[in-house]
């Protein structure tokens, strides 16, 4: 008579492996925070000891006041009007510097808005990127006055 024996199972139990793996996936998905990792390029001019002398009259001065009020070359202006104002000037001299000078109390977002608008000059029909400069207070004090 053949004796029936209980043969031990020779398989590795892998059914719970997927559970562990999915638990790890869920952990990674929950802890991953999607952050804003994009931004505006803000090219800084070289900090030379002998910066090129820019005459105030040659450039366009954009002043930004608290609350976002804009004054371009002494004329109050809306953000959307700036490019139209600059067009004839930049067609004559594409290298004309455009200086952004926010008041110290102006909120940062207003400066970023103006900078963003000027960076899009080519989309508004300008031939070359605008030569934008944002002098810091230290530079204004040491070179302008």
């Amino acid at each position, binding site marked *: 008579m053949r004796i029936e024996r209980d043969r031990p199972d020779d398989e590795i139990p*892998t*059914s719970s*492996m*997927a559970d562990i*793996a*999915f638990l*790890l*996936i869920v952990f*990674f*998905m929950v802890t*991953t*925070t999607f*952050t*804003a*990792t*994009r*931004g*505006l*390029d*803000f*090219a*800084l001019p*070289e*900090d030379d000891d002998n910066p090129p002398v820019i005459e105030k009259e040659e450039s366009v001065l954009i002043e*930004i006041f608290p609350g976002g009020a804009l004054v371009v070359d002494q004329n109050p202006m809306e953000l959307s009007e700036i490019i139209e104002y600059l067009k004839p000037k930049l067609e004559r001299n594409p290298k004309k510097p455009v200086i952004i000078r*926010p*008041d*110290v*109390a*102006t*909120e*940062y*977002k207003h*400066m*970023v*808005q103006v*900078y*963003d608008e000027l*960076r*899009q000059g080519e989309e508004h029909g300008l031939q070359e990127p605008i030569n934008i400069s*944002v002098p*810091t*207070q*230290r*530079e204004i004090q040491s070179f302008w006055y």
Partner: protein
Amino acid sequence: MKLKASIEHKPNIPTASMADIAFLLIIFFMLTITFEVDKTQVTLPKTTLRNEIPKKAAYVSIDPDGRIRQSDGNDQSALVSGPEDVLSMAATAISSDPSKTFVVKADGGVPWEKVDQVLDALKRAKVRDLRLLSDQRTVDDY
């Protein structure tokens, strides 16, 4: 004649490859995860133009109360006392890697004076690659 009993099939779902799929996903997540070096809560300004910021960039953040935090891109950001500390950190980072990317993560509502001081410090440290962290501007924002 004795009929052969039909072979009995145990009903089962093949789950052997499930773990492979799951581990593949884990590896994907582990490779793509970027640890946030700066967790300062700010309301970023909105811009239309936005470019991808390289990994391992150094961060300088300014929160709504004007406090400055900085990170060299490897460690978590830490509170600093003023722009002078930003200058020394940036100068150290630039001396080892002159093309290091710096990111300014400032709240949209902070006065320009604060941002100006930080930008001035970075300029003096001869930072060449500077980005202003921003959110996407949409048609609703106009």
